[in-house]
């Protein structure tokens, strides 16, 4: 696609992919358990969340928490501690399930019955770029009306399709959209 950066950061520009910033913001909006999974309080809370009902447990199993009921029971009763790899799996399953459940509500709030949400795009950081190579990249805002693809691919954890969806969105910025492929921050509220 024309306008895409080929070798980003070659001259010292700093920033992250716009889609990563969006995913980060969505994660922030989704919230969740703040205690790290390594603490007992943290993994216990996650396990309670994942075993709250049969559908969530099914979703957790689909997301990679493939342990027997016996093990789960032992963990929940505090007789055993999950191993390091199990903790990672718990965290992974928790994030996936949480995203899937929150996505519905988040999507409704972001679409706002078709009125959409105002998104702020903060341009990349050029402070380390030599003076003669710096370009004027302005702060931009846009209204995004359709969030279905963005939130859908975020909930599914599919980085590639999230990136594609975000790129299709920022094309609306006009011919300069390529300058906003990498950003310092993407801000919006839900």
């Amino acid at each position, binding site marked *: 696609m024309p306008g895409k950066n080929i070798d980003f950061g070659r001259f010292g520009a700093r920033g992250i992919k716009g889609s990563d910033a969006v995913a980060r913001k969505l994660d922030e909006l989704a919230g969740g358990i*703040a205690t790290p999974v390594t603490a007992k309080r943290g993994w216990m809370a996650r396990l309670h969340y994942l075993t709250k009902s049969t559908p969530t447990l099914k979703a957790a199993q689909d997301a990679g928490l493939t342990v027997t009921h016996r093990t789960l029971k032992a963990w929940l009763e505090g007789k055993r501690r999950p191993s390091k790899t199990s903790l990672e799996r718990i965290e992974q399953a928790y994030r996936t399930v949480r995203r899937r459940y929150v996505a519905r509500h988040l999507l409704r709030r972001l679409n706002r019955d078709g009125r959409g949400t105002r998104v*702020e795009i*903060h341009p990349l950081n050029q402070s380390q770029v030599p003076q003669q190579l710096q370009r004027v990249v302005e*702060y931009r*805002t846009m209204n995004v009306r359709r969030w279905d693809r963005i939130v859908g691919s975020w909930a599914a954890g599919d980085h590639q399709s999230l990136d594609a969806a975000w790129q299709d969105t920022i094309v609306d910025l006009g011919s300069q959209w390529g300058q906003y492929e990498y950003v*310092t*921050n*993407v*801000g*919006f*509220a*839900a």
Partner: protein
Amino acid sequence: MSDFDAIDSLLDAVGPQAELPACDVRRELRERARLSKAQVARALGVSPSTLSGWESGRDPAGEARAKYAYLLDGLNAKLATDTENRPEPAEQPMASGAAAEDVTSTSSPGSGRGEDEVELLAVPEPCVLCGRPAGQRVAGFAQHLTPADCRPTATEAPAAEQPAPQAPQAPHAVQAPHAPQAPLGTARPAGAAARSRGPARRAFQEPSGPVDLIREAVQGALGEHQGDVDAATAALVKRAIPDAMRLLDVTRKGARYDVIAHPWIPDILKKQTARGADQIWEARPKWTRHELPPGRHQVTALDINGAYLSALKTHLPLGRLEHSTGLAHDRRRSGVHLITPPEWEHEAVLPNPIGQRDEPGPLWVTEPTLRLLLRLSGPKHQLCDPPQIHESYTSGATENLLEKFRIALKDARDTAIEQGDTVTLEYVKAMYSKFVSTMGESNYNRELYRPDWMHLIRSQAFANLWLKALKAHDEGLAVVRAMGTDELHVIGDWRRVFAEGRAVTEVKVKDTYTAGSDVAEHADEGE
């Protein structure tokens, strides 16, 4: 000969000075006409602070005095006519229709001059000469084009019987507009002529936009609840946050800077835990004088009106905060700073400007606190050493970002107080206080994530209170206590220092009590 001309004109200029009303009358006239200081100051070609001076005791001189007298005269006449006789709406269409014909007939000879363009107005505006609705605007002033339409009103009937051709009389011509067929006023300076054109300089326009928004919301709520004041107030307070955001949007229409709502925020501005606070010290004053002067005293607890509303005027950083170390303070930037505060040696009579800090060592303070410290360490006050700045997160700043927003709320508040309208008063109060308290990381207002602004505005309120304490101290009052955002306890005749009232520049009495050396703990009574 030209020397003598110059002398003649000088001699002409020396004459009796124009009469001006008393200071509070000047301000009242301006406020009743819903004109801001900035508007009037621009029209007079002076700075708003000069105008403040004129409204609080100083007297203008020379040409500025003549202009100001003319303005006050006009306001006086206009407000008097407004209250006495309102124009009947029935004659408006006729008047504007006739006026439209006048334009077609008069504009062709007038266009040769190219000096003044006649605009047709869709909605008739009050004529600047007679105050009745006029269908045209010339040089930015709505007015009638023919003397026949421009009928004098009841109050100025004896003075101006045939106003239009002679209306721009010599001393008044600096301000008065002129109809195209009238000879160009020679006394009018060229600069004023050039500046007075264009839509920005329309005098006596109805205020539109922000204040209307507030009024409509209140009327809507009252209508919805069939005039039930309590229910309407509750409903309005409930929607205060989204309404404040909408008001902010409206006031930023056509503005130079964007309100950036979701910038990157440094870690020091993020809450450490869900219930915890971030690392910024807001310098909230919480000070009670250790020892009262000997004897028994009457202590007055004063309350500063609308402290947070006034504090909306502060230097707010616009964009993303950028880190810097070891740089001197830059007046054009604003943000948060890691400083080592100076020693404070006046604890016995004045609160510490950084508040009641228990821990020693460097701390993160905001721009208003730093500016206060720098000001106090300056040559004028010399109350402490300058603070040491170690690190800063700053961005380019402006004081005017929320200015229109603040003025809209202040105007609505003033009108509500004047009319005894408790619904609007509560609504306005909820809007500004909730706007400030939820503009940070609050879930009640997700449209604005600016914890830096929240801290800055709060600190500004505290700094304002501190400066009031200093003013009281300098004027010879004994400051007994400075608490929170708006509480100041003083001993002495405070009425000669502060004006009493309900406007934001005035103070009101919360409580009076006696305290003295024999009753040491008595100062706690004024809660």
